[in-house]
């Protein structure tokens, strides 16, 4: 299915990442959103509140992030595509409802434009400190998908991808921007609607009476019916059976949780979304994501100028973590270097997957600005020795 041309601003634009994210959501078919203002994410919903009514949609500014993170799910169960947008403190408030979206298999997108934390932290300055929260923030066992754009262009195209993955797997997708990509202004090319692939909602193929809202087929992803379609859907955050009815015992829990895990796990290859450069034969590979990947690019160039064999691995989908790729890569290199704007979060996954087969060097940063390329270069040189 292609994007609806009525929502697509085809052309070449000079806009920031927040605006691009808004356009990406519209191109993906989201015409409804709920949110609560917070720097540095607010521009997304400011733009959306102007754009949505033009296409029969709306933005509602809720009373807090607890409200927006569940209102958007009401919008989805009414048959729409929807998202919410926030940053640090607001993201923390949304955690309960990420779990609700996971257990009820509500396809939706949570955008977090990361800023310095903890708490109110650095409201206007960048960080990547919510990466583990994106994976583990809500209680209980669930898996999410998380994408990390590194440019306004990707804020556009990966937002569409985020919506597509949400529909394909019926999961909440975390769109992990950072203040830098959110606020940087660059060229953004929006293609023609017919060139934009949209993953349509997997609607019930059986009539009411024969359809079970949480019965999954081969790929473990159930089809969906909405309120008002005659299906009398039953949606609960309690552990439930294939009809959606609460069943509170270990067997039902096992079936539900393992299926919801498995539907993502078995798509690991498809969800390995990375950008690589000169990995083959490299002594050191720099692994990074988001804005940090652009600083790393400079450090990599400096190292190559010094004659070092350095590869680049940029994570575009951070969750699920590209485990297989790292397991294969680790024995072939001397070191993996990971700069990130936190005190060392994703590097824990990197270490786990490298399994001691090479050195893993973390280049932490408390946030507020980006790394100095020289600091990443120093780590590369250490790894190459």
């Amino acid at each position, binding site marked *: 299915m292609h994007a609806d041309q009525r929502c697509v601003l085809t052309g070449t634009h000079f806009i920031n990442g927040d605006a691009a994210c808004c356009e990406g959501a519209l191109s993906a078919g989201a015409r409804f959103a*709920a949110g609560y203002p917070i720097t540095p994410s607010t521009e997304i919903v400011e733009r959306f509140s102007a754009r949505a009514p033009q296409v029969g949609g709306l933005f509602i500014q809720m009373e807090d992030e*607890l409200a927006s993170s569940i209102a958007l799910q*009401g919008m989805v169960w*009414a048959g729409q595509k929807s998202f919410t947008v926030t940053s640090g403190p607001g993201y923390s408030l949304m955690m309960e409802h990420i779990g609700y979206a996971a257990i009820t298999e509500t396809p939706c997108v949570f955008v977090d434009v990361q800023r310095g934390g903890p708490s109110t932290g650095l409201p206007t300055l960048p960080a990547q400190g919510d990466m583990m929260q994106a994976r583990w923030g809500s209680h209980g066992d669930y898996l999410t998908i998380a994408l990390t754009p590194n440019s306004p262009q990707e804020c556009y195209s990966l937002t569409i991808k985020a919506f597509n993955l949400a529909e394909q797997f019926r999961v909440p997708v975390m769109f992990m921007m950072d203040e830098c990509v959110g606020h940087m202004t660059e060229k953004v090319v929006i293609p023609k609607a017919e060139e934009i692939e949209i993953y349509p909602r997997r609607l019930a193929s059986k009539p009411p009476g024969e359809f079970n809202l949480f019965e999954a087929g081969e790929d473990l992803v159930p089809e969906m019916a909405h309120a008002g379609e005659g299906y009398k859907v039953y949606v609960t955050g309690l552990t439930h059976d294939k009809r959606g009815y609460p069943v509170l015992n270990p067997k039902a829990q096992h079936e539900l949780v393992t299926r919801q895990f498995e539907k993502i796990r078995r798509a690991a290859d498809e969800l390995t979304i990375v950008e690589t450069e000169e990995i083959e034969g490299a002594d050191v590979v720099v692994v990074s994501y988001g804005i940090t990947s652009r600083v790393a690019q400079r450090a990599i160039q400096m190292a190559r100028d010094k004659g070092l064999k350095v590869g680049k691995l940029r994570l575009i989908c951070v969750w699920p973590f590209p485990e297989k790729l790292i397991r294969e890569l680790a024995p072939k290199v001397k070191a993996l270097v990971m700069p990130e704007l936190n005190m060392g979060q994703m590097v824990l996954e990197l270490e786990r997957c490298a399994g001691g087969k090479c050195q893993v060097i973390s280049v932490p940063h408390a946030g507020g600005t980006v790394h100095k390329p020289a600091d990443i270069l120093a780590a590369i040189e250490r790894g190459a020795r």
Partner: protein
Amino acid sequence: MSTTDFVVHNPVEDLLRQDRVPTIWCPGCGIGTTVNSFAHALLGQDIDLSKTAIVSGIGCSGRVSGYMNLDSFHTTHGRAIPFATGLKLANPELTVIVYSGDGDLTSIGGNHLIHAARRNIDLMVVCVNNMIYAMTGGQAAATTPGSSMSTTTPYGAFEPELNMPQLVDAAGACFVARWTSFHVMQLERTMAKALKKKGLRFIEILSPCPTYFQRKNNLGDALTAMVDYKKRSKIKHGCHTWETALEPGGDIIVGEFVDREREDYLTRMRRQLGSHYSEFPEQTEEEISEGACSEC
């Protein structure tokens, strides 16, 4: 005629998910009684039940959504109203009812109640007030009458209780009423009336929890509660909501307190947006397959 030919059909049954009966509710619990009034009120309407959704939070009262044969949403504790808000805004054709408990709607979800009333969003909100957090075993709530016993107020509660009608009235709801689970007929009529209105309609129902509230406070069984409700209730339609505060052992003011016309959220939004709002009709098969050129 043999007795087997004689089938008694209770019309309310069609509105319940028969495959989920028996309910989790205790004998003597008032929640089921309120559901009976609600079902009767729904049956008397000319609304399309396949386009009617019911949303609950968490609690004994929060289980109501799951027993109704409608589109049922059992959300998180306190968040039924914002979920329902999203549901209604994204599909205005739906009739959306929020049905939940006093703790859910006025403590953890109190802020949402205020703002839903302020927005006058088109929802009917039914609050079962058993004056306690029942589902979790009888802890004090914002509605627990002063000096009552609960598991977290072993020396008696010392916080004053909330007057819900006053709160919701002040915030701007277009319809505010209160009954008890003794007033089954009046409740049905009020619900029927509220179902026909547009905007935020709020109905509080005092309801006994014999298992926790009644027992902890030596208030006897469910029948005693009915006798007590009957004795203490004073019907005062149109009463100022500042006069409806509940006091331990005092009068229970019941009736329809507020019934006013106020533009609801969506109507106002459309009016104000005027020409900035564009309808977004479903694309025809033809348009989709031909994929109208985005540059035209």
